[in-house]
């Protein structure tokens, strides 16, 4: 190869150096151009996230503007303590306005937009009320049920797959469980509506066929593949030396799995659960189809539930463009977006750093 180059150098009319520089000059432009274009396109994903932020907030914003105008005209400010009324996931930007709302809670009859923190969600009526409490509570309830079902099942299944299963069986189990991720959520929702609702009602004998419990379990199904796959990855990522050392000391596979591998994989499993929560929280179709969609405040898991995302899905189609109701639905969307964004950031930065620190110190 080098010989060839030398020969080329001596034989050719141009020196090798000249050839190189010629090539460089000729192709530099297309190279430079390609790089710029590729870079610009890659920036698009950042731009999309920012645009989502802007446009979802933009449509939600008029509610607060309206409130501010009204705050000037309304002299009647009754102090009411709504301490901690807004959940932590609410946008920091809007905190001031939320305070405004709680002050003007008396004036609900005329100003529907100031009922955001009240306890009734009745957007379509002569005196519309946009109290998001039942929706928050409903979402929380369903998410909790889904998580209590999905997290243990998928973590245990992941432990079985990575620790106890024989390699050949593992090769089958993993793709089969990941099939569940390929089920469209509308199909899971349909299954919950047609089959699970009836079966559960026969077992538990509760009154309303569609309720938070059925919806929660169905939404758990959607979260299982996420939690399972990420947990399995986290368990497999634990250095083999850990396992071998433990087994070598005479511990059983069960002891190794639960006292050595599982603790080492905890940050990864947390990240898996956090992303699972995000999936459940934002799930729309299953919530629409299986939870019954009645906005009520109740702690009974067998009562009908209306989640935040299902509210958007159910009501946005019938809403007047630019109406208060429309803005409130976008406000709900903003809250959902902030919450999932925060969850993702948590999983991405906090837990990932924990994982890195863990293994680096032990290497």
């Amino acid at each position, binding site marked *: 190869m080098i010989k060839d180059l030398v020969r080329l150098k001596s034989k050719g009319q141009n020196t090798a150096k000249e050839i190189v520089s010629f*090539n*460089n000059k000729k192709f530099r432009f297309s*190279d430079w151009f*390609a*790089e710029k274009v*590729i*870079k610009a396109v*890659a920036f*698009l*994903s950042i731009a*999309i*996230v920012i*645009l*989502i932020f802007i*446009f*979802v907030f*933009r*449509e939600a914003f008029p509610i607060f503007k309206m409130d501010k105008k009204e705050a000037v005209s309304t002299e009647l400010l009754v102090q009411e303590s709504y301490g901690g009324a807004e959940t932590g996931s609410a946008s920091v930007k809007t905190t001031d306005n939320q305070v405004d709302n709680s002050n003007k809670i008396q004036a609900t009859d005329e100003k529907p937009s100031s009922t955001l923190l009240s306890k009734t969600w009745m957007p379509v009526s002569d005196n519309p009320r946009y109290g998001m409490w039942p929706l928050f509570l409903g979402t929380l309830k369903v998410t909790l049920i889904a998580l209590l079902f999905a997290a243990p*099942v*998928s973590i*245990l*299944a992941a432990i*079985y*797959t990575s620790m*106890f299963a024989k390699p050949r069986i593992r090769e089958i189990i993993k*793709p*089969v*469980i990941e*099939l569940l991720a*390929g*089920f*469209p959520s*509308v*199909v*899971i929702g*349909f299954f919950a*509506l*047609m089959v699970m609702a009836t079966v559960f009602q026969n077992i538990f004998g509760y009154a309303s066929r569609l309720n938070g419990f059925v919806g929660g379990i169905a939404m758990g199904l959607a979260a299982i593949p996420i939690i*399972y796959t990420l947990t399995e990855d986290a368990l497999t990522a634990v250095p083999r030396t850990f396992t071998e050392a433990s087994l070598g000391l005479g511990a*059983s*596979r*069960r*002891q190794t799995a*639960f006292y050595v591998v599982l603790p080492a994989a905890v940050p990864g499993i947390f990240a898996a659960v956090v992303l699972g929560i995000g999936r459940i*929280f*934002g799930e*729309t*179709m299953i919530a*629409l189809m299986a939870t019954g969609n009645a906005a009520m405040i109740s702690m009974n898991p067998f009562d009908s539930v209306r989640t935040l*995302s299902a509210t*958007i*899905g159910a009501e*946005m*189609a019938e809403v007047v*463009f630019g109406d208060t109701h429309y803005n409130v*639905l976008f406000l709900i*969307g903003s809250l959902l*977006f902030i919450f*999932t964004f925060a969850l*993702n950031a948590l999983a991405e930065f906090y837990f990932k750093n924990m994982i890195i620190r863990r293994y680096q110190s032990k290497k």
Partner: protein
Amino acid sequence: MNRNVKDTIVEGITGVSVLLIIFIIVSILAVTIVGGWPNLNWTFLSEFPKDGMTKGGIFPAIVGTAMMTIIMAVAAVPFGVITAIYLAEYASEKSVIAKTIRFAVKTLAVVPSIIFGLFGLGFFIGFIGKNMDGLLNGGELKWGQPNILWASFTMALLTLPVVIVSVEEAIRTIPREMREASLALGATKWQTIRRVVLPGSVSGILTGTILAVSRGAGEVAPILFTGAAYFLSDLPRSLSDQFMSLGYHIYIMSTQSSNVDATLPIQFATTLVLLLLTFSLNAVAVTLRYRIRKRAK
């Protein structure tokens, strides 16, 4: 308790969890197949809905889903491939830009699908569409309302991360030696990417496209208010028409229909069609991906 007994019990519990998940998967499949198979025939696939949607087939929903996913793929795949090339070939792992892009892609992957629907409504319809109407049609409403184009674009944003992840994975399996050989022969970086990296990652691009199509065909929330229609007597003829979709059809028929029981066979058969569609697409993608991973090892 005896240690061996404890071991067996605990292992048994974890095994039962696996069986539970598999049982659920099998029962979803079984219920859909048993409920849908008897009604699944050629007339069902090739006819329009009849008699107020209580009879007839799902032809427009199949065509609508196909058209929407094709437009979606045309929009999402090029962007996804280029972003993947940037992440794998140009960006250094430690650069802030690359990290930010990665984080943005992950955010897109976890944002609830309904948010994409809201974004489509606020951005594509309310902003771009409205302004297009103002400029092109003199304010007449054409683009500023839900249609197949905006629905496909919205879905494209949702499936972008799927494409990026698949393609990047494939690009990274191409041996470094191949790139170095190309560069050593005097090819520039862009030539190397075009002639060596891209041809080598065709299977990855294909996997990403198939996964995106399968995801897009199944999602309903993003198209709820960006273009899906309850019933249309005609197929969409232009990009500014609304369309029917399989997933939306299932949702509407099972929850909003006036007579849910009468249309049960249609619902099950539609679900079966959608499931078969996404399943076969996923099966192809998984096989392709398995091959790519094998090459990586």
